[in-house]
């Protein structure tokens, strides 16, 4: 199965008596954009937590580039190329945009350096500026993040993750709280910058998911009930019943 970047095999997890995920299987291919949808409490974020190592599954395996990483620590997984964003904005509010990116870029090399090696740091900073330029934010490099609009903060949030040059980027509702236009702009930035990165996108805005994703997986009550192309999902009865059929009120 060459081309498979991430394989989730029979993963399950329970908190106390509550089964949050039951026997979930999912494969993400190289360069693919995968949508992940499901009602609130379906287990989407929990799945992210398992892939990134914030949680250990009760059973099942996570395989990345052919290696089992189920027990690998988060920091190690990040170095392997698995990076995520969070539902809530997770920027560093008191640092400048530039410093936010620098923190990400230095994570792998100079994160613990005390006596700095100027050249290496300058290289990292040059790279940060490059990313900002591509995202059209170079003019705001020196701004303190907390002084920016929420939309811009979310962009910085995503840029931080992209600066890590991930192979797999897990986006947890990046567009939540944004206006339609802001959301579309954010997706635009992601698509410009992500290159060959595989994406897994959780979003409540189904229009965006169906427009952007190559395939879409549907979680309901901790079970994977469908995984297909957007058109396939639209036609899938189980998915309809679990999610779409309930209409927009499930999505709010």
């Amino acid at each position, binding site marked *: 199965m060459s081309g498979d970047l991430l394989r989730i095999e029979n993963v399950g997890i329970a908190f106390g008596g509550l089964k949050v995920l039951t026997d979930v299987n999912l494969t993400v291919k190289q360069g693919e954009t995968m949508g992940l949808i499901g009602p609130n409490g379906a287990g989407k974020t929990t799945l992210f937590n398992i892939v990134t190592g914030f949680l250990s599954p009760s059973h099942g395996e996570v395989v990345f580039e052919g290696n089992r990483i189920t027990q690998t620590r988060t920091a190690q*997984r990040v170095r392997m190329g698995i*990076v995520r964003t969070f539902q809530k904005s997770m*920027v*560093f*509010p008191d*640092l400048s945009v530039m410093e936010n990116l620098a*923190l990400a870029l230095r994570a792998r090399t100079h*994160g613990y350096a*005390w006596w700095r090696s100027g050249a290496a740091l300058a290289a990292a900073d040059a790279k940060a500026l490059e990313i900002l330029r591509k995202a059209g934010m170079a003019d705001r490099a020196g701004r303190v993040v907390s002084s920016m609009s929420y939309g811009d903060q979310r962009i910085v949030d995503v840029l*931080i993750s992209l600066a890590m040059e991930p192979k797999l980027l897990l986006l947890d509702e990046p567009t939540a709280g944004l206006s339609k236009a802001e959301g579309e702009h954010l997706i635009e930035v992601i698509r410009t910058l992500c290159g060959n990165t595989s994406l897994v996108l959780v979003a409540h805005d189904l229009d965006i998911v169906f427009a952007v994703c190559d395939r879409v997986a549907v979680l309901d009550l901790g079970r994977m009930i469908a995984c297909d192309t957007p058109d396939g999902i639209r036609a899938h009865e189980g998915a309809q019943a679990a999610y779409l059929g309930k209409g927009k009120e499930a999505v709010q």
Partner: protein
Amino acid sequence: MSDTVKLQDAANGRAPAPSRQILALGVIAVLAALLPLVASDYQLRFVAEILIVGAAVLSLDLLVGYGGLVSLGHATLFGGAAYAAAVASRSLGADLTLMVGIGTLTGMVMAFITGIVVMRTIALFFLILTLIVGQIFWEIAFHWRDVTGGADGMRGLPTLSLNLGVTKLDLSSSFALYVTAAVLAFAAWAVARSFVNAPIGRALIGTRERQLRMSALGYDIARIRMMALLASGAIAGAAGSLYPFVNQYIGPNSMQWTFSAMMVVMLVIGGVGSLYGAFIGTAVYLGIQTYISSYTDRWQLVVGLIFVLTVMIMPRGIVHGVGSLFGGKGKQ
């Protein structure tokens, strides 16, 4: 959350323009040089004490101001190093470099032990666990009578000296102690400042503000905190190593949690996250305690009121409070 921000946004230390900084340093240097001309022996020694305790408070600022880790066990690092230096001085003599070396090392070892125990906790849990670990260290010092003198502490220590190869410089005079303390205080400030401005310092701020994000970026939170603790322990230890020789005495009080709490109070009064505020807070606190108490038994009321007012009116401490009065620098 907004408090942490208010309290600590100075911690991000976007340094003021270099020229202004050099000017400030110059003014301080001139004042420091002029002080011995006007101050009496007693006052010089008092200032030396402020500088030494201030350096320890500054090292606490690394944890509180930059790491968001409020420790109630910081006095143990300071006092433990002081004991180590005092004990060593009995057999090895009190050579300055040796003492500071021993103190720094002891501070780091104790910080390391503390770190291993407290690493997984944050917030109130961190506060209480550091308190408990610190009190365990205190109990050891208090009961290890053969070495530490128990509750009576240690006195009759040799005087501090500096071996320059050719000659041996005696550092027992108030003036010499003042100069030594001033050099130490400056070095402590410089080291702490370079730490917070280095990538590790930025990463430390990152762990304070967004712990989850930092792990998602591949940072090892425990490792960053441990390095901050070690740096902090090294500075506190270096400061502690001089303390027995300035006081000519060291006792278990300097390891007790009440002293740790006093350090936190000093830090908050001076200004969290500014580094140099530590010295101002220490001076204010020790000044009140030493001078107001001559006039009234109610000096603790005064300290309490000043502290509460600081927390309520200028939570970022005197440094920022005064700064915003004069330069409007308080708001960005």
